[in-house]
């Protein structure tokens, strides 16, 4: 493959690898797992790796959507790792110029770190929500314990009274 003179040309050449890297044949019309990672890579290449915040936001959006649909963070990371690995193989084969290879590898590593950061942020945010929810659960438990304590006292008194009544009844 030729030495790409512009970022646009290089991005288009990586886009060609999409089917191979994402194994789209397996998944038909649906978005294959890891598509968000591959799209982020194309974005990173087209902006020349200069704008991390933009990449962050777009990935955050995509990751949140997958988590909302019920995918786990582990699944997201597994997909990202698979995309990275397949890309490394595809890049070595498809790009003859070492400089082009290096540009793509560098962008792929940037995306890998960004995915990890976004997933970690999501996990940490979930942990924070879970901590708050646990506090609420513990408060509810304290109230339920109080109610249960009072119920037991009443039941105990009623059992005594009922036994006594049964006894008087029997004697009568």
């Amino acid at each position: 493959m030729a030495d790409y003179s512009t970022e646009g040309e290089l991005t288009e050449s990586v886009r060609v690898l999409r089917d191979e890297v994402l194994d789209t044949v397996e998944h038909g019309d649906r978005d294959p797992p890891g598509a968000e990672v591959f799209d982020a890579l194309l974005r990173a290449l087209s902006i020349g790796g200069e704008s991390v915040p933009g990449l962050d936001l777009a990935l955050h959006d995509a990751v949140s959507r997958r988590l909302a649909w019920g995918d786990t963070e582990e699944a997201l990371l597994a997909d990202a790792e698979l995309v990275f690995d397949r890309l490394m193989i595809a890049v070595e084969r498809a790009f003859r110029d070492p400089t082009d290879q290096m540009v793509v590898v560098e962008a792929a590593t940037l995306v890998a770190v960004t995915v990890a950061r976004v997933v970690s942020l999501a996990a940490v945010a979930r942990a924070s929500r879970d901590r708050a929810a646990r506090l609420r659960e513990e408060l509810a438990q304290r109230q339920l314990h109080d109610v249960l304590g009072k119920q037991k006292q009443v039941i105990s008194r009623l059992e005594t009274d009922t036994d006594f009544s049964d006894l008087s009844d029997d004697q009568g």
Partner: protein
Amino acid sequence: MSTRQTGAVPTVTPLRIAGDTHVGKVRENNEDSLVVDPAIGLLAVFDGMGGANAGDIASQTARDFVRTFVTARRGTLAPKPLLEGAILGACAAVYEAGMRQKELHGMGTTAVACLVVDSKHVVIGHVGDSRAYLLRGGRLQALTKDHTIVEELVQRGLLNAEEAERHPYKNILSRNLGSRPDTRVDLLELTLEAGDRLLLCSDGLYGYASAEAIQYILGSGDAPEHVARDLIELALRGGGGDNVTTIIVEAAAPARTSTQVVRTSGATAWWQMRGRFMQAAKERGLAGNPIVRGLPPDEALELVGSSLCQAVFHDLEKSTGVNVWTFAQNLAGGWFEQGGDWGSVRGMIDILGMSARTVVEEIRVQDASLGFLLDVAVSRALVVAELALGGLLAERLRKMDTDLIEISTALHETLDGGMTAGSGAAGRRGEIDAPAASDSQDGEGGGQFVDRATIPFMRLERAVTSSDVSVDLLDAIKKTITIASARLPPRGSDLVKQILGSVESIATEGSGNFATAVLAARELYGTRSVDESGVMPLFDALEQARVLVASSVQQIQTTDANRARCLRAVSSAHQRLVGATTGLVLEAVAPISEKLREAQAVTSELRSQVATAERRRADLERRFATTIDPSAPWGSRGSTEW
């Protein structure tokens, strides 16, 4: 092997000039070049960049062009256009040389040059991040602003100084000679005053030495050739991760420098007041300090007070700090060896410090200017003592750190041993895929780490480099990491350094790197709080390491193909480490969700118990009411209270 080159030391004009350069401790080539040519009044530093020896070619091309240009036109052009024309011409010359040979394509160099107009006037021109400093009245000030992306963002108010210091792109130049046919040169005309010192240097100096230390050495009063050499020594002691070049220009000396005053009159005045110092120390209770407990008071005073007094005297006399440093080390070192506490050392140093200040105040009353200079010098001596103590404490912490690492390593080896003994390396995959079976065999303890794949999404069979990896590639990986480590700032980058070390281990290990990556991630993760402030610094450091590695790989001397292979291997290793680290974040988060689920289960159980109790209460109440008076209506059969 010493690769130092020394520039000529001129004897013309009232200016004293000297220059020196050194390859540093990490690089193999010196890509810096310098000109020290008093005959044409030209001094310049060039710091080249570009792979395959292109850096030194760029800096030498620029150096030769500037020197030839200035020699040819010194008498015909005014100083400012002369210097500007020389630097712009050098830019075009480097660019053309790069265009002529493919392997030199993209090479470039920085330049900071000083053209001496006469004994009081100079013109300074610069492009890139080599710097010019002026020492005037003992204060160091930068004359140039770096042409880096980050510095320009600071100039535009988009970054503050602190953010700039930590910015991953702080070394990326916005201007240089050679990447384009022309550039813009910043020029400055300066009028020198008696005693001024100018310093021209490459980033190998200020990147590895603090501004305070540079100011201290530049203001030492030593001859320029010694100062140039001492500054290089300073950078080498700070790590020497880059080529380092210094040029010193000293304007005609004033009658007497402050250093000379302190060396003679100050030292004498101090020594004459030693009796007063001892008395002040005695009054402040030196003899009662636990360090000298058991000694007769006079002996204690003599042993500690007199020793410090002598140390300060010798340091004042020689403008050094070595005597006070040694005193503080001996005092605290021996005490710590016996298991002594920090508080006693602190107390002793405070007594000595306050006694010294008492003496200086009394000298100031007699001679205000000498007292002022002595105040500065004695304060410096006390700071040196504090630094020596800090060094001792750091040494103790390092020893403790080493012990902990050894314990941790021994623990991991034990665990790994257990893993291999359990089912062999080949069976590792199966072990992790079938945790239940392994659990039953290994029982508790060492087997736990092996049997539970804590980072389940990481695939074990994945190779970063193949087992038949070439020596060239391994060498390239090591060089890349060495360069990246050397480019770290001296302070506050331990985490990034640790990451770089881990990446190297993973990348050079070949296929069996799963355990290495997980263990490295565990070391990195340490004990962090599971929130944004605990976890995000880790990812910031991983990103910083990524940027460093990507730029450092460009600097290694190898073929483009090998460089690409090296980047692939290092990036794969980095990605593996990032994956393992994220896995640990998920692992840390998991118990929090688990506890929530447990709490929800407990709440649910409690609700169920309350419902059961409520049914039982209602049942008992009905029975009770029926027994008491079956004919009465439900409402009047008795009541229970909640």
